[in-house]
């Protein structure tokens, strides 16, 4: 590369750097400010609804487990009445079943 060409490159490079540094003025639209805050509030609302969603999903899952357990128990032949009856018949005075509660 000739010295002349190198000088030209340096000159243009310098001019480009200075044009970059000169830059443009920042002008902020007031509407932009309120749009950002609106976006942030929207995110907050989404965050809130996501925790609410989690609770509802948990409730649904719990109900499903309860229903499935009842169906399985009914299928196997276990009913709450039968279980209680057999418990009281085996231990009419409650001597065994009340043991854990007696010191």
């Amino acid at each position: 590369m000739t010295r002349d060409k190198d000088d030209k490159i340096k000159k243009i490079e310098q001019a480009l750097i200075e044009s970059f540094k000169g830059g443009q003025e920042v002008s902020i639209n007031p509407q932009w400010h309120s749009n950002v805050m609106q976006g942030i509030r929207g995110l907050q609302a989404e965050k809130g609804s996501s925790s609410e969603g989690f609770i509802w999903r948990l409730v649904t899952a719990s109900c499903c487990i309860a229903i499935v357990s009842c169906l399985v128990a009914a299928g196997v032949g276990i009913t709450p009445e039968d279980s209680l009856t057999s418990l009281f018949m085996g231990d009419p005075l409650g001597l065994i079943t009340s043991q854990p509660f007696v010191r």
Partner: protein
Amino acid sequence: MNNEDTDNICQSDEDVIASILGGATDDFEIILKRYERYVFTIVIKHMPYEMCQEVAHEVFIKIYYSLGSFKGKTPFKHFVATIAVRCCYDYWRGHYRSMEAPMSSLTQEHSHWCDSIIAEESLEIFKRQQCTKEAREVLRWALNAMSAEERIVLTLTHLEGLSISEAAELLGWSAINVKVRAHRARTKLRKQIIKLISIKDKDGDKK
């Protein structure tokens, strides 16, 4: 200045962040007012003017999302700058990926600008020439020839004048990575300038 403004000035960034994390979302407005000009100053250097507002908006959304990760080891201003620079880089990565047609080419005016820069001996006129629309367009044309990585590194190190380690910290890259990319980008910039000069010389020969 009203009382509310005075209160906002008295509150440190850390206090404001704690209150936002505690659920006072509206306090983010204090952060927004404190740093909007700073963010715009960074974004405007890296983005086309028409994209600045959109990218700055994204920067503040990311700041809000990342508040929990701010540990206070460095000043909050530095945290904001890091997010702003990375948002600009993300924009260019997405832009290059979705780009179908080659970007703007140079016209006769740019060639004249190049002529005047090379020929100008007077410092005063030289300085005036640097800030023209053509100068910005030539810079944009030269930067468009680079990858997103080279573009951001060149802008930070060569144009803005940051050190390699400062640029590396802002981008979250290793210093060696930044150094290599900065070197490649600088070579590409010089190649673009040579191209510009040769276009001008060819035009001169034709005449």
